[in-house]
């Protein structure tokens, strides 16, 4: 069976259309780039200041000044462009990003997101996350359905400090594909072999179950 990264990556990838400008967060979101349909080319935005992010260069061909927002060596594709941080975030906040894909510590049925700090434990800072979530036209959460200890991450109401209020549009996990609406979280698709009972049991928020919950095509 496909692993979490593959399930999530493939399903998120199908949310894009050709030519979309997308920012992929560190970790599982980055993997989305590996699962794009053949006829869909998206353009990746890197918040440290460019569009046209390409693959990791072969060893020995790294350039010290071409790195992604995690500081890792990358490449820039033909047609890409560099700019300063003000321009980078003008693109983000100005609605020029079709989507941002990020991980989450918690996400709730109002579309609130918490992914930048755990008080007293981990305070890395928000970096560009708050701008990305406030600015991108679609906010897609790509994550494991539950925390490492099995506790739910999809909640009625986030209790960690928020990254943004009511900005999340979709949640994709190894169990299913969910859309956040004004009424709550709608279960749109289940991963192969997953039941409604299973996904609900691992979700604190009450999922809205439409008559036709499809099986995720991955």
């Amino acid at each position, binding site marked *: 069976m496909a692993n979490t990264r593959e399930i999530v990556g493939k399903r998120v990838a199908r949310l894009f259309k050709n030519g979309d400008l997308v920012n992929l967060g560190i970790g599982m979101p980055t993997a989305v780039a590996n699962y794009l349909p053949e006829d869909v080319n998206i353009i990746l935005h890197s918040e440290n200041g460019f569009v046209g992010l390409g693959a990791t260069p072969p060893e020995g061909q790294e350039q010290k000044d071409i790195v992604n927002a995690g500081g890792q060596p990358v490449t820039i594709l033909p047609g890409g462009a560099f700019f300063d941080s003000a321009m980078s975030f003008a*693109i983000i906040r100005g609605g020029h990003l079709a989507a941002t894909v990020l991980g989450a510590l918690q996400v709730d049925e109002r579309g609130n997101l918490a992914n930048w700090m755990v008080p007293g434990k981990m305070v890395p800072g928000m970096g560009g996350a708050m701008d990305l979530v406030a600015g991108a036209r679609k906010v897609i959460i790509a994550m494991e359905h539950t925390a490492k200890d099995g506790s739910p991450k999809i909640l009625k109401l986030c209790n960690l400090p928020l990254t943004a209020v009511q900005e999340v549009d979709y949640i994709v996990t190894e169990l299913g594909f969910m859309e956040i609406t004004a009424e709550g979280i709608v279960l749109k698709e289940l991963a192969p072999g997953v039941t409604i009972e299973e996904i609900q049991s691992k979700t604190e928020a009450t999922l809205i179950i439409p008559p036709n919950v499809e099986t995720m095509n991955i």
Partner: protein
Amino acid sequence: MNKVTTRQEVIDKFSDGQTIMIGGFLATGTPESLVDALVEKKVSDLTIITNDTAFIGKGTGKLIVSKQIKKAIVSHIGTNAETGRQMNAGEIDIELVPQGTLAERIRCAGAGLGGVLTPTGVGTIVEEGKEKIIRDGKTYLLETPLSADIALIKAAKADTFGNLVYFRSARNFNPMMAMAAKLVIVEAEEIVEVGSLDPDEIMTPGVLVDMIIKG
């Protein structure tokens, strides 16, 4: 993605009542072919956002003469006598905006900002109807975003994806306008292949551009 298109495809995008940003400063850096296309289509009741109304027969001045403009949001109209005449005759609505404020208001729209505080215009008629905010003892006006349906941009070079390079003082308002409209149409003096521009020399990334014609 090749965004190079025909003049007719561009003309099809124009319609009455649109708000259109047009790059340029006294016609330098104004996409003359695109302005001509607007004149040709005879669309009316336009709102234009542009630095100035240039000259009779040149740049945005052509749209004044052809009486297609309902309202112009500009910093200067002194070089086009017809603009002044239409304004005094009540035929056109002119909103005068200080030039730096005009640049920032357009930038705000493109950058997703809700406004900026500027000291420019405090104590003048520019402040009428605007919120004043005092910070650290200095008074500022809250100036709000200006966006448009279409931006008409002039570039020296464009690659087929829409990455743009401007030349000399023809840059002026073009880069901000290329971020602030729903549809961004570029007239380029030269069109080159993707990959032929260095990624550091690009002044407007192609991701912001929708259509390109050779100008």
